[in-house]
């Protein structure tokens, strides 16, 4: 299935969970946050939250800034 991840089109396994997506992309879960269709997905729900075709996902971290 196709979805939009951080502004890029990505092909991922059908019905993949947020947790499995992060693992597949080798993104460490410390200090990150995930937003699915403009709503934050809390860390405690990464495993149960499944993605679907056409979803818009943002994964953010902290960087240097003022």
């Amino acid at each position, binding site marked *: 299935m196709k979805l939009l*991840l951080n502004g890029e089109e990505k092909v991922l396994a059908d019905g993949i969970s947020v947790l499995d997506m992060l693992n597949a992309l080798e993104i460490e879960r410390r200090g990150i*946050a995930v937003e699915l269709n403009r709503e*934050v997905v809390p860390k405690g729900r990464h495993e149960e939250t499944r993605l679907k075709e056409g979803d818009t996902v943002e994964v*953010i971290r*902290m960087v240097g*800034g003022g």
Partner: protein
Amino acid sequence: MTGDDTFKIGDRVFRSRLMVGTGKYKTNEEMIAALDASGAEIVTVAVRRVNLDRTKESLLDHIDTDKYTLLPNTAACFTADDAVRTSMLAREAMDTDLVKLEVIGDEKTLFPDNEALLVAARILVKEGFTVLPYTTDDPIMARKLEDAGCAAVMPLAAPIGSGLGIRNPYNIRIIMETVSVPVIVDAGVGTASDAAIAMELGCDALLMNTGIAGARDPVRMARAMNCAVEAGRLAYLSGRIPRKLYATASSPLDGLIG
């Protein structure tokens, strides 16, 4: 600084009145050394997308989160909606209710869009955030932000990264008389004297990034800013002498030879 001269943001008590950003350093090592030299307890960070190209180094691998209170910002947000979303993501990522709220109105000046700022501030206060809004040096706006429940107000000294120093010290003074929450001067500090002037006005704290990170020797400048903030604060607490046009002798006039 004397041990009991502290200020509060929400329920948190801080001793250092210099807050610093973590952007624009040449290396992480330089940033860490500058943070250390600045004496800051609060450091700002920004929210950005994770790189998907497997370059996964995290800022948090470098900053000691036991030593510093991290203050996420909403830099480069141009709408209230983006600023609220960014704040929500920062809270989830950092497990903090603190946010330095920026809603930028214009790319050239990076001046705040105060109308959108107020909208975002009200939403975030309702959501339980401790909101520190970056605003223009407008006392009326500062009052509205305090009324909205913000934990501090952060009027700019001059445009972000401009190094122009405090352009309107009178407005900063009026803001301090207008609100009872801490006044943290944010943005525009170029060198140590600018920092000292801000603190001599009596503002509670100062936030800077480019003034340190952009200096030729950032670590030394961080130390200079640390000293300047402390000197300015002590001068403010000490009560300066009034300005007079003519001289007053400092040595006694009695007992002169002749």
